């Protein structure tokens, strides 16, 4: 086994320095270059490498010392200290907290005041619990139903995945909170954490520029669909777990990525998209041959992939034991008129629909599909896959609620951040439009308009 210290360069700057166990086969290809050299990784990032102890094949006894000296040599050569180069970019907690709190206050106030101004009745301060929130609160209070008792006839709460109500129920039991307050806490805390992970992920994988990452985080905060992140819905938990899965996978922490994705599949059906996404991340970071070789030695990725469906399988087993049908969460969709069809036909019908709500759903869907294409062009395959499949799967049954599904896909904000990140006017324009749309959505939510549910 050989060791090598790898320097990660971005725009000529050494930004990170870390050590790797290098499979002999991979390194031998570069060994001709001598003890130092450069290579281009599968992810198209330029690595410079320093072979520990000048290419001596080391025995297991002296691994640690040699590895440390290797890091030291490599980092000194790039005028970085070994300690600082290992750290990921620090998250600016205060800035994130300020953006989070100001955005929540702005959107909540817009909904509350707008609802009072345009509505006929008084708006309750807790107006955020509407539509699906009532289903979740029903699960928190009474668990899953044994027979369909909902409206429309035939509907039941089997359609709603268990992790979010479980967390709310746990919080209710521990802190003795009202379920709606506990739901709001879980949603907003998840969103705050998601913002931090989003910032770190952006700096890790997109650009190390602090301002650009903060701008993308602000876009996420003021997303037109931000009301879904505030309300007791699963959207913010889904966002957090998707980001955690991607961030941990990008950091090669596969076990934790697998656990996060298992939680994701217990949150929403489309959580299963984490499985191909992780595979795409791994394939983008490694050559296929290297990946197979390392997985045969230690199946870290395979284990993470196997772990991912655990949340979904657990829910299916529960449904089978509860009411005899493991696929009840899917079968019950028929009660809402959701049946599989061609997503592009449904989209085309939506674009031709004269009803404003349907046209809006279709427009948001088209924008998401364009973002998918943009992501592919930028070679962000895993994220493009998440948007594309995350849109097409719900679209194959219904156009309704598409904005909710689209706005909870984090790669959208990365692509927007990258697109407008270098242009001041573009930045201001995108934020302005986004804030206005978020306020209109909040008012529509407060007024209980069906098109926002």
């Amino acid at each position, binding site marked *: 086994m050989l060791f090598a210290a790898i320097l990660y360069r971005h725009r000529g700057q050494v930004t990170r320095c870390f050590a790797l166990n290098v499979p002999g086969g991979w390194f031998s290809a570069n060994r001709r270059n001598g003890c130092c050299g450069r290579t281009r990784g599968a992810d198209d990032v330029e690595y410079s490498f320093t072979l520990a102890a000048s290419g001596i094949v080391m025995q297991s006894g002296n691994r640690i010392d040699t590895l440390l000296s290797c890091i030291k040599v490599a980092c000194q050569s790039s005028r970085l200290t070994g300690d600082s180069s290992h750290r990921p970019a620090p998250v600016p907690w205060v800035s994130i907290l300020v953006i989070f709190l100001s955005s929540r206050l702005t959107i909540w106030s817009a909904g509350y005041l707008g609802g009072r101004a345009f509505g006929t009745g008084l708006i309750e301060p807790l107006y955020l619990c509407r539509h699906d929130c009532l289903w979740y609160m029903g699960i928190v209070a009474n668990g899953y139903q044994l027979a369909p008792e909902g409206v429309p006839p*035939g509907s039941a709460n089997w359609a709603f995945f268990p992790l979010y109500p479980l967390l709310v129920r746990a919080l209710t039991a521990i802190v003795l909170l009202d379920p709606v307050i506990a739901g709001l806490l879980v949603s907003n805390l998840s969103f705050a954490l998601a913002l931090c992970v989003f910032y770190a992920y952006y700096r890790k994988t997109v650009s190390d520029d602090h301002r650009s990452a903060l701008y993308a985080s602000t876009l996420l905060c003021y997303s037109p669909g931000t009301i879904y992140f505030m309300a007791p819905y699963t959207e913010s938990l889904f966002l957090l777990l998707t980001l955690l899965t991607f961030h941990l996978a990008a950091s090669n922490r596969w076990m934790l990525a697998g656990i996060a994705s298992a939680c994701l599949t217990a949150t929403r059906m489309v959580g299963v998209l984490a499985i191909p996404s992780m595979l795409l991340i791994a394939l983008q970071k490694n050559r296929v041959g290297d990946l197979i070789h390392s997985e045969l030695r230690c199946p870290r990725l395979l284990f993470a992939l*196997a*772990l991912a469906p655990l949340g979904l399988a657990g829910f*299916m087993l529960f449904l089978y034991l509860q*009411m005899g049908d493991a696929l009840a969460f899917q079968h*019950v969709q028929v009660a809402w008129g959701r049946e599989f069809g061609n997503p592009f036909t449904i989209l085309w019908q939506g674009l031709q629909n004269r009803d404003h709500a349907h046209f809006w759903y279709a427009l948001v869907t088209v924008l998401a599909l364009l973002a998918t294409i943009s992501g592919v062009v930028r070679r962000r395959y895993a994220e493009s896959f998440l948007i594309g499949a995350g849109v097409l799967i719900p679209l194959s049954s219904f156009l309704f609620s598409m904005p909710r599904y689209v706005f909870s896909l984090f790669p959208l904000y990365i692509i927007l951040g990258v697109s407008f990140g270098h242009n001041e006017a573009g930045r201001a324009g995108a934020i302005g439009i986004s804030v206005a749309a978020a306020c209109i959505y909040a008012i529509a939510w407060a007024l209980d308009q069906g098109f926002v549910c």
Partner: protein
Amino acid sequence: MAMMPGPLPRYVGIAVLCAFYGVVWSLALNPRVDRLYRSYYIEKSLPQWPADRQLTYRPGTLIDFSKVNPYLSRRGWSEPETSGTWMIEQKAELFVVPDSVSEGDMELWIQASAFVPVLHRRTTVEISLNERTLGRRVFRQHDRRQDFRMAVPAEALDASPTLLGRKVIRIGFEVLDPGPPARSRFSVGRKMLGLHLYSLCLADTTHRCERADE
């Protein structure tokens, strides 16, 4: 450097997880549900969940198939035409929730014709109630509309699944010798045409069928 566990525990973990998923998937393929649940959620034949009296039917009332009515299964029927509704698949069903069911036998009154392909010379339709065959009806070429009755034994009615204490009766039609119009060059599509149902009525043996507006 921390000691990393060998690959074996992970391989064992992967095997255990895959076995668990296999068990869950086999359970998913074999649901333990009643007939009604299967019809509505899995087979998607029951048009609506029979709550809130949506499928309620008063025995002795004629169901007119030239009008939109809620009893037709999701699949197997054409849109209503001026004279009635066509079967467009080999099988089609009706679901009715009678507001009262007599203790004894009943009768099924049917007015229907059928599409008979030139090469077939006849079309045979099997009619069942709660998956018990009531009988077969043969339609020949140039036959006009047929009015016929079929006896419904009390045992078949008793086999109805119940929802909230109310029986859901399932009436099935199956074309035994289907001949798509394309085969006789009536059409280029793959559409099937079978029974053309004008009206139907389930009634006590002692009562006549009446139109709903009579």
